[in-house]
């Protein structure tokens, strides 16, 4: 319990962001037509690829001699960018089909 209070007091900003972003996420998604559920899930999936920023930071901070960290970071960047590029591209492809309707 003390740990939690300590964490909150030390990371007040993060705590605020955490709570507010949660509500933004909920509000933004609310009352979405079922037609868009799949593209939306796909788009959100691409967004979760933001974890690639962390993977890049790992590589930037790695010692060039530290092959394990570099290798793990490298794989993490590859996987992350697959998630990002693939995710956005596939969402775009899905939405392209919706556009064709008259």
């Amino acid at each position: 319990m003390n740990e939690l209070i300590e964490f909150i007091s030390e990371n007040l900003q993060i705590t605020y962001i955490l709570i507010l972003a949660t509500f933004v996420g909920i509000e933004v998604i609310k009352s979405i037509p079922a037609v868009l559920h799949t593209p939306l899930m796909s788009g959100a999936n691409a967004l979760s690829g933001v974890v690639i920023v962390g993977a890049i930071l790992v590589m930037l901070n790695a010692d060039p001699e530290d092959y394990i960290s570099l290798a793990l970071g490298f794989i993490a960047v590859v996987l992350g960018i697959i998630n990002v590029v693939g995710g956005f591209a596939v969402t775009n492809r899905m939405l392209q089909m919706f556009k064709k309707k008259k």
Partner: protein
Amino acid sequence: MDILLSIIYLVATVTFIVGLKLLGHPETAKKGNSTAALGMGLAILGAIFLSKENVPNIIYILIALALLIGGVIGWLIAIKVEMTKMPELVSLFNGFGGASAALIGLVEFGNITTSSEATIVATIISGVVIGAITFSGSLVAWGKLNGTLKSVVKLPQYNIINNLFIIGIIAFSAYLVIAGIGNPVIAYALLALGLVYGVLFVLPIGGADMPVVISLLNSLTGIAAAITGVLYDNKVMLVGGILVGSAGIILTVAMCKAMNRTLGSVIFGNFGGAVVAEGVNKTLGTITNTTPSDSAIMMNYATNVIIVPGYGLAVAQAQHVIHELEELLTKKGVNVKYAIHPVAGRMPGHMNVLLAESNVDYSLLVEMDDINPQFNNADVVLVVGANDVVNPAAHNDPASPIFGMPILDVENAKHIIVNKRSMNAGYAGIENELFYNSKTTMLFGDAKAALTELVSELKGM
């Protein structure tokens, strides 16, 4: 430089929120996707060039190489894959994101010392474990959806085993946090535990619940990204991850609601498999076979026809043929509509995406609540590869596992034609008394083949 990077992250964060918002409306969805993608590109470039000075060139080269390799792979998969394979693709991509988070955690685990703050240790551990769970879980979901993993595998007492397993992981993690241990071997042990749990978690869940699971795993990846964001005090990861996390939960709950199930019953309940034996023993009467030409005649002279597409349509790639059928009937003066159950197929909106691909007019796709009263006026309902979403047991068999799930009330129509490959039970693994209804005729065969015959019969009339 710091300020510039902060501004870039801020802009990227805003594009994520705006992008997600725009994705929620049919007219703006495409713009939303590009907006978010643009923001993501900005954040990635900013992270590479502005977050650290004096980085050896070799590292930049490696990053560029990794981006190139992954970018090309992602692009090719996204462009090449068939639209019917969409749900499993999302699951696969999601798994990659989870793996990325787990790997980051692995690297950071090596930097933990006894003097590390407990909160840091906790974020690293949860990053590894959650990332690993989403990775293996998504891969299992992917395998299940593309048919590689066919059966519902259930260990005896899997609920108890799974729950004990996750409690074990949490207890172990808590111990590590308190002890502040940074031994890399333990990191790999945590990774392995997370991977095993992901498999245990998804394996017993029936295919009918797979959309819910994918959505949930998607949400988890977001949370893993957010945790990594806390670790690096990186706002764009934090907000982006939380957005996906909370949006994913909302989507998951919406899907559960559409099936009248609670999240708990999806995760811990037993859907599919277990009830098959009971259903098979019941005598439900006889089924009546029909031919494409009989079905064609029936539809030709109908006034109102409602088509109910299901996963079988996607499997058979019959979306173009069904559009042809619909156009043909419309030309003949038949009033044709599509009834879209929210969880038809393997993902919410799966049928919409599929039918949009073959240029079906948007306005012909009618959602469940709007179409249900119209079944009374329908002369013919053509069910193509759908099963559980038209199973009357949801209304009248309290013992059925799908009892209470909202379904399409096709039995109210004057006549029902069901196209199915065989009498095998649907994904929920239960019998469907609709097939034995005296108003129902069965048109067995692959959806594409059967519909093609139907179309050519109609053309000759």
